[in-house]
């Protein structure tokens, strides 16, 4: 029983780590086609089951903006509070392309390893 618990813990921990590693790339992907405001980013990530709570996202977006990967502006909305729209800067676009390669390489490596393990 104890073993199962620790096993589940390990899975959960690895999953969190993997998702966190991926999250930057995922945000870059979401913003690839233009301006998106925060709530939409959250909705998309949640639908993709990449985040559970939103808390983690705000600091990440803020850091990416500070690193000049994202640009943002506030826009008044017809009803409700103003919205913060994000889009990719040139640096962001470059990083998104780089990470795409990185991700696919990683994906291939894992596929190869998995196949090797099955044999």
């Amino acid at each position, binding site marked *: 029983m104890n073993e199962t618990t620790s096993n589940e813990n390990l899975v959960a921990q690895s999953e*969190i780590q993997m998702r966190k590693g991926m999250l930057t790339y995922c945000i870059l992907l979401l913003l690839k086609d233009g301006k998106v405001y925060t*709530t939409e980013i959250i909705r998309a990530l949640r639908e993709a089951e990449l985040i559970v709570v939103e*808390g983690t996202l705000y600091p990440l977006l*803020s850091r990416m903006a500070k690193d000049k990967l994202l640009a943002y502006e506030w826009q008044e909305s017809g009803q*409700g509070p103003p919205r913060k729209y994000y889009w990719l800067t040139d640096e962001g676009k470059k990083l998104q392309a780089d990470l795409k390669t990185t991700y696919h390489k990683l994906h291939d490596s894992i596929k190869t390893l998995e196949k090797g393990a099955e044999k």
Partner: protein
Amino acid sequence: MNEVTKIHLGRQAFTIASDAHKELRDYLDAIKDQVKDKDVLEEVELRMAELLTEHGIVGDKVILLKDIKFLKSQLGIPSDFTDDGDSPAEIKPADSKRLFRDTDNAILAGVAAGLSKYFGVDVLLVRMLFVIAVFTGGWGILIYIALWLLVPEAKTSSERLQMAGKPVTVSSLKETVARADVAGAAKRANKSLAGPINVMFKLVLKSIGIVFILMGLSLLFALLAMASYVLVYTGNLFGQDIFPVGIREHVFLNLGVAVSVLLSVLVIIFGISFFKQKWPIKTWITGILVGLILIGTAGTIALGADVAPQVRDRYNAHLHTSRRSAQPFTTVQAIGQDLTIRYQSANTYAVSFNYFDNPNLSNIKTIVSNNTLLIDSSQFNERRSCPDLCIPDTYNVVITVESPSPPLFNDGNDMQPALPDKSPTPTLDQTKPILQ
């Protein structure tokens, strides 16, 4: 029903119930501790407003506690807002429980309260044990003072959490801080079972404090009286040239008085500390005081050991013995002063006197008639007359009755008969073997 407040959240006006308002404020404060960026905070607040609107809080609908719960479930716990990315808020294991003095719930120094937190028992039990320990030999006081000195006080919120064995996290810290705000009010409103007993404990401590203060003051006055006497009578305490004689003995006496004065001051301070439930003077002053007392005591003891034999010799030089032979008697009767009468086995009948200084012994009559030795000291003045105060102020007369066999003691006065306490030296056949 709950009171409501108007608030602004993410540039929007809301009506919120007071309990929900408190919860929301705590939550935002906890997030503020994690997020230093104002822009991010504003975004979070905007998002909260948006979530609430989506959740059906429109118009003048009141935000309730359950809505805040919903916000939390969407946004996550404050530690989720950390920027480090990789590590979620570090959680110290709960077994890192440490012993602290709990001064928030203290009566004296928080030792008992801290111990109760550490062992997870009621503080009353610990206090009872201390009281029992104080009245069984007094070692409870020693243990208490030792713990007072050795165990640190829980000063910060995280130390208070460690004291209670709770993990130190952002949310638990927030909780402690929030509780500390109401701690003062809770103390004042302490009407529970522990309330009257705590009051009783405080009263007991205050009474002990008063006893100590009075003890110290009377010691101080006694010393003052003695010192002024020595000053007035140029320092001859015994009326004879016995003590103090010479510089060394005067130094010994003065040092002894000085140490006693410091000691009585310490006793008074101790009493005040019990009364005020706080050590009233600075630590370094305490250190100097205790240091002076220790050094002074050591000096006094060393000088005393040097001086004592000389004083004893001088005292012994004033001791005399005289002896009167008497007719045979079988009974001894004493009337008059309360003098010590002993019996000693001898071959002849006699009465011997041991005394200090020069009493007029002719006023003690010893007459034998009808086989009865009458010792009449009613004319005798047992008080010495000295120019100053005399210590001892009597001649310390000891009468020893000598006869071949122990006589019967017959007391003329109402006083205790002085029983023969010097039995004849036992002969060999009378001694019992120690081992069978």
